[in-house]
């Protein structure tokens, strides 16, 4: 293996890698590397290490104990580097500049935005929505921006809306923790976990939508400040 990626930043080689990716990797990692049976590869952070050499090693040798096979002997050194180059080209988290003020975003988050009522950061905040402690490592700038005014564009898997009506006629709505063939567990805005046998309810439904409001009334500056704050949440000291 070459000490460094011979195709680093080469758009033509990345495109060749894209062709290979759709065929060999797409079945598990999604046609656009967005994830599926295998992990999302567009985030710029990877379970097995973040250098080109780490990516090379995973593709060439596979990952023991998972369904990730070894491709090195099948496709050859150059093709593994082409895949690495393609994967780098879709890790777009850093491509969009952060224009807002993270400190302002933090104030909005815990203040008038009300974000902290549902989303935890570190030891603080509500539990109904996804924990955002490391969201800056997991999601791209574009993704974060879109999540604020189009929360239904892409839901964090599992964080769907559950609506039940009890036998007494009480309607309760919350965010799914589990929704299976016999039971459901969900969390309401007050942080309470509800658990029901679905047989004991008048009705129980799951919709593939988010309970998060769409912040379409926020100014562009507020949205940018919030994105800047979320992007800074990387689990590092002081955040």
């Amino acid at each position, binding site marked *: 293996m070459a000490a460094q990626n011979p195709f680093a930043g080469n758009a033509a080689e990345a495109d060749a890698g894209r062709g290979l990716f759709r065929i060999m990797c797409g079945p598990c990692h999604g046609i656009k590397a967005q994830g599926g049976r295998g992990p999302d590869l567009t985030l710029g952070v990877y379970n097995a290490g973040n250098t080109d050499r780490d990516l090379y090693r995973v593709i060439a040798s596979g990952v023991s104990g998972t369904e990730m096979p070894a491709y090195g002997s099948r496709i050859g050194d150059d093709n593994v580097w082409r895949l690495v180059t393609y994967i780098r080209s879709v890790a777009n988290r850093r491509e969009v500049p952060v224009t807002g003020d993270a400190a302002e975003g933090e104030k909005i988050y815990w203040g008038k935005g009300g974000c902290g009522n549902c989303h935890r950061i570190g030891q603080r905040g509500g539990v109904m929505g996804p924990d955002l402690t490391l969201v800056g490592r997991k999601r791209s700038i574009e993704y974060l921006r879109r999540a604020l005014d189009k929360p239904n564009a892409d839901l964090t898997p599992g964080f769907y809306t559950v609506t039940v009506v009890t036998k007494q006629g009480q309607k309760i709505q919350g965010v799914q923790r589990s929704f299976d*063939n016999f039971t459901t567990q969900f969390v309401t805005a007050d942080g309470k976990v509800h658990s029901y046998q679905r047989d004991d309810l008048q009705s129980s439904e799951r919709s593939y939508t988010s309970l998060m409001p769409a912040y379409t009334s926020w100014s562009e500056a507020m949205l940018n400040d919030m994105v800047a704050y979320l992007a800074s949440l990387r689990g590092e000291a002081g955040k």
Partner: protein
Amino acid sequence: MRFLLLLMAVTASAQVRDTDWLTYGLNLAGWRFSDLAQMTPANVKSLSLEWVFQTGVPGKHETTPLIKGDVMYLTGPENTAFALDLKTGRQIWKYSKPLPPGVSVCCGLVNRGFAMYGDTLYKVNLEATVVALDSKTGATIWETPMADPRKGYSGTVAPIIVKDKVVVGIAGAEFGTRGFVDAYDIKTGKRAWRFWTVPSPDEPGGNSWPNDKVAYQRGGGSTWITGTYDPGLNTIYWGTGNPGPDMNGDVRPGDNLYTCSLVALDADTGKLKWHFQYTPHDVHDWDATEDPVLIDVDRGGRKVKAVIMANRNGFYYVLDRTTGEFIEGKPYTEVSWAKGLDKRGRPILVSGQDPTPDGNKSCPGGGGGHNWQATAYHPLLNLYYFTSTDGCHTYYMTNQQFLEGAWYQGSTFSGEGLFPKGSIVALNPSTGDIKWRWQMVSPPSAGVLATAGGLVFSGDSFGYFFALDAKTGKPLWNRNLGATVIAPPVTYARGGRQFLVISAGTSVFTFALPKP
């Protein structure tokens, strides 16, 4: 009253004779119907755990355990197998063969079970071999290679015994291989015959492929689910998988026989008697590797020897198993790619449903409606039970260079933004009319079992093992086992008691009613 209950218990006990489970589908017709009736809709709520055995082998457990004498024989992932004491679940022996390098599988290092003849067990290993084991010790008696695993061939299927032969299939149609059904001498392991599921250009059916030296060699048609056997007709029925490459049909114009088909083979010679192709020129990965179940259907007062299949392409089919003639076909789930079937059973296609570089949505999805998971036929109720994934996928196509032994799918399908549901379907096998459908919140994962007690048992991806009323589909009992259920349940009886066995995660669980 107490006396009466005691009397009833004694009577019930006397009625339950010892019952084994000796082959993949319980009988060679593939029914998975047990005449045991101790468990009923009235008492199923009292089922309780007898024992648990942990295989300790990571990976999907898809095995149908065999029950004979005092022992349960089951296969595990990664070339493992176990013999367990039936009373306690304690291990008697373990078979384990290290996986050689270069083995490629599409869908996990799985195995679906043993076949058994006398004191000998037969299974396939992942490196595409057939192995015979001494059931007393687990020691290897013989092991015969079927094909070269470095080319993408692998072994996952449960064999069946037909007369003096062990009959097996092969996996690997996602790697540009050429499928076959093989028969091996049960004593020596010598290959008795092979039927290639993809003909060469000069053989009958060869003109359904490009006339070159390579397309048929990569043509797919794997045979990874166990077939069935009719001794009266001396015929083996075996379903075949997708053509290769799965989603790029441009490189293989033609119907691509005998992929996505049922082949009827002479049991002595392996010669083709007839074939029926469910999905000509498939581009959606709709293998016809679902259970081909042999039953007699009623057609206007006339009994017809039939072979039925809930096909992955969304249609349920009835064929005459003597001639291969199409009798009936109906959709059992949402189907968008075909308007219906013509008089000969050929699909009437809808345009705009094939994979393209930018993707086309089509239903059912890539895993199909019903997939490989075991089905069951209840002869007393005349109902056929199977699981269905009810949903769609976006199908993509990519031009792809062939590399020997490498993934050769011609791109992929995606479920992004689509949320399929699932169901267990009960239909009238003569007509294909749906009697009931039990809705599941997500795609099913496990096989099913039907019993004379009036129950259908299955499991789900959430770890539930559950019982439905066989007549109505009403859920009657469930117990969460903590890990996904993929394997089908099996049942047997010893000492007047009926037992249920189910694998979940890496464990095997046995249930029974409390001792009287």
